[in-house]
């Protein structure tokens, strides 16, 4: 069971959180301007890489904030957490 550091509440056990998939995938600003293929890429395509991966978590049972986590998908090391609006380099 992971222990995830909520950037607001501190470290908590995984059941308090909800997973939100890959981070830094913004909802397109003008969806109508996208082709079917571009839209499908946004909807259905995500990275599935081994190593450091930026992903979204929601502290559902705590402060209800969404934030980002850098996790190593090979080792399960949680490198750090950072707030929405920050970049993965800010993870701690």
């Amino acid at each position: 069971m992971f222990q995830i550091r909520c950037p607001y509440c501190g470290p908590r056990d995984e059941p308090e959180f909800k997973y939100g998939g890959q981070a830094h995938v913004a909802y397109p600003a003008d969806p109508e301007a996208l082709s079917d293929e571009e839209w499908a890429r946004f909807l259905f395509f995500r990275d599935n890489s081994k190593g450091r991966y930026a992903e979204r978590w929601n502290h559902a049972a705590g402060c209800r904030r969404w934030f980002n986590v850098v996790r190593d998908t090979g080792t399960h090391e949680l490198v750090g957490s950072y707030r929405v609006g920050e970049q993965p380099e800010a993870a701690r």
Partner: protein
Amino acid sequence: MADRTAPLAAMEDRIAAAAFPGAALAAVPFVAQVGIRLDPAGPAAARVAEALGLPLPEANRVSASGGRRALWLGPDEWLVVAADGEERALVGILEDAIGADGAVVDLSANRTGLELSGPLSRDVLATCCSLDLHPRAFGPGRCAQTLVQKAGVLIEQRDADTFLLLVRPSFAAYVAEWLVDGMAGLAADLAAV
């Protein structure tokens, strides 16, 4: 006209009977609770603090003054707690203070209270809650939203060995069952020593 009903009315006897030398549990059925959402860096924060007569606390903390307490719920969310019946006045004061710069919501019926006290109260919580409540990590004046097993709770430490748990009424019996059961296990351990 009928009266309000206490969410844990059906469990009152069992809650009382769970008491042992290590801990006691009591339902606190009605607590005035008002939710505040505002930007702590915005103009409303200071107005609210002044109107309440207490500062809006930092993360995981509680501020208290004159029978009112403000519990931190999130970076822009607090819960003001006071004696049953004060909710109407509190909503008025807070709405005036916040104006258009946030939200005030009466949540007095949205959670009910369970007070756990006694020298083993931390151990009772450790049977069903993974939060670190050791004095080095928690303590009086601290609060946290966390889980008792599958139920969300807001835990406030009131003094060295007293905790107030604020729980959604539909989860209150489930949470009380876990606490009562944890108390039974610890009572059996205590008797065996």
